[in-house]
């Protein structure tokens, strides 16, 4: 792992004084490799390594730490800071009902996350209504309805085949049923699918969500940046949910998405069950990315 590799890099050092340029070069190579192996986007890696290098060159090797430990600490601090504060929470304007909309690439975990969020909100004392906005995927609406039944949370499915209309009607239904937060599940879509990205923007314009969450699979590779940037431009999401963190994917995509879009990561999906949603912890994610 990175700690061990850095120990090897610095094996020749006497452990006092400052780190030289040459010492740091070798260390930066190891850090670059570790981050790329963790699926951090290569452009983000370049910027990140440049930042770490600045801090590492001339870094005082503390008496109590080896040079390798000094560099690791710098890397962890920078990663944790980049991954964002621990206070990213769902923010509602006070308008009733509050509206949350989920977007993302196919198969990332949106429908499951919609149900998990509804579950969380009910535990927080809210009365959520799930809205089945995916009219394309076979049995997508059945899927959300089944999850709603499991949670005993109502699901609005609408009569329209237009997701914009379903979203609007879903919000009206929430008012009628006195539900105070609406969670809109949308179809998976490619950021290069012009029609579908326009649809997402139209749903947003129609119901003005308080929060739009992009759902990103933790095992996504270099493409995470391209997709996130496009979603940020077309839909301007507010925060991210990273899913499938119960696996062994290092999750570098999370760092890339955060760094490139500036949007906070709010939640971590950690399993298929409907209670498997956690607050995102940047320090834990930083350690995970470093392996």
């Amino acid at each position, binding site marked *: 792992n990175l700690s061990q590799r850095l120990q090897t890099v610095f094996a020749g050092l006497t452990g006092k004084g400052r780190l030289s340029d040459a010492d740091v070069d070798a260390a930066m190579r190891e850090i670059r490799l570790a981050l790329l192996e963790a699926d951090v986007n*290569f452009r983000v890696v370049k910027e990140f390594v440049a930042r770490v290098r600045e801090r590492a060159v001339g870094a005082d090797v503390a008496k109590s730490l080896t040079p390798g430990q000094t560099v690791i600490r710098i890397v962890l601090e920078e990663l944790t800071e980049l991954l964002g504060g621990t206070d990213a929470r769902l923010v509602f304007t006070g308008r009733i009902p509050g509206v949350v909309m989920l977007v993302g690439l*196919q*198969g990332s975990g949106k429908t499951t996350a919609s149900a998990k969020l509804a579950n969380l909100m009910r535990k927080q004392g809210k009365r959520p209504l799930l809205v089945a906005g995916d009219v394309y995927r076979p049995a997508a609406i*059945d899927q959300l309805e089944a999850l709603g039944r499991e949670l005993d949370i109502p699901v609005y499915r609408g009569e329209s085949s237009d997701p914009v209309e379903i979203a609007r009607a879903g919000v009206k239904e929430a008012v009628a049923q006195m539900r105070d937060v609406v969670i809109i599940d949308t179809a998976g879509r490619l950021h290069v699918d012009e029609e579908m990205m326009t649809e997402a923007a139209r749903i947003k314009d129609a119901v003005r969500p308080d929060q739009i969450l992009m759902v990103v699979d933790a095992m*996504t590779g*270099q493409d995470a940046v391209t997709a996130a940037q496009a979603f940020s431009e077309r839909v301007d999401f507010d925060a991210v949910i990273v899913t499938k963190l119960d696996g062994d994917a290092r999750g570098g995509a999370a760092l890339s998405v955060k760094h490139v879009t500036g949007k906070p990561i709010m939640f971590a999906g950690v399993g298929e069950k409907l209670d498997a949603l956690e607050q995102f912890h940047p320090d834990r994610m930083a350690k995970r990315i470093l392996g």
Partner: protein
Amino acid sequence: LRKGPDLDDEFWEDLEDTLVGADIGATAVTEIVDRLRDSAARQALPDAAAVLDHLAGELAREFDSDAADLLAEGPVVVLVVGVNGTGKTTTVGKIATEAARAGRSVLLGSGDTYRAAAVEQLDIWAERAGVPVVRRERGADPAAVTFDTVKQANETRPDLTLIDTAGRLHTSADLMRELQKVQRIAKRESDAPVRSLLVMDATTGQNGLSQAREFHAALDLDGLVLTKLDGTAKGGIAVAVVRELGLPIVRIGVGESADDLKPFVPDEFARALVG
């Protein structure tokens, strides 16, 4: 990537970036580019275009283009496996459609007895393809559905039997054991040979190698399908997987409709990787 004449340091760095950006993996990319610089020098490759051609050729050769199509070897039973959300159910639907159009008889097995509306989802695909599907209630033992499906296949002898399975993380020992049991039952009961196909998402990063290794160790896979190549991800992780495990890429997924299943063409795939 500039395709101009100069093979300067910037060209080689840009090329490394392109390949890393395609998810080929940093260590593999360093090896590939080092070897390529060497070839470029020894063969006096004249310019960037020549180097990229040479590279595309090298990458294409990593894939076995003579592998027999395991979907056409009928009668055959194929277990479709992979981690959550990669496109297994959709791929089963597409393969069923392709086979039915080619005049082959098809039977589907609804082996995902876990996820909400998984059975309903496959039902719709079965209906679209015009093929029968064997199913049980949600929550049933997937081994039982497998058993039923294979029994029916033994009776009706379809050319192709496809068994959809629930998505699962390769890190879950219980779920991998469940899948091994499904395979064991299928092989024990089936008159036709039983093959296993791993469905991987082209947007997957380096974790894809870990996925493929674990599924291969558990099931001794026969092939791969790479989905969502209609996006911007190049699917370079398939290079690492094929290098290590030597499996054929049986089909690629390029969209969400029944027609969006294509043969895997190494030259085209390699071209797209080098941009």
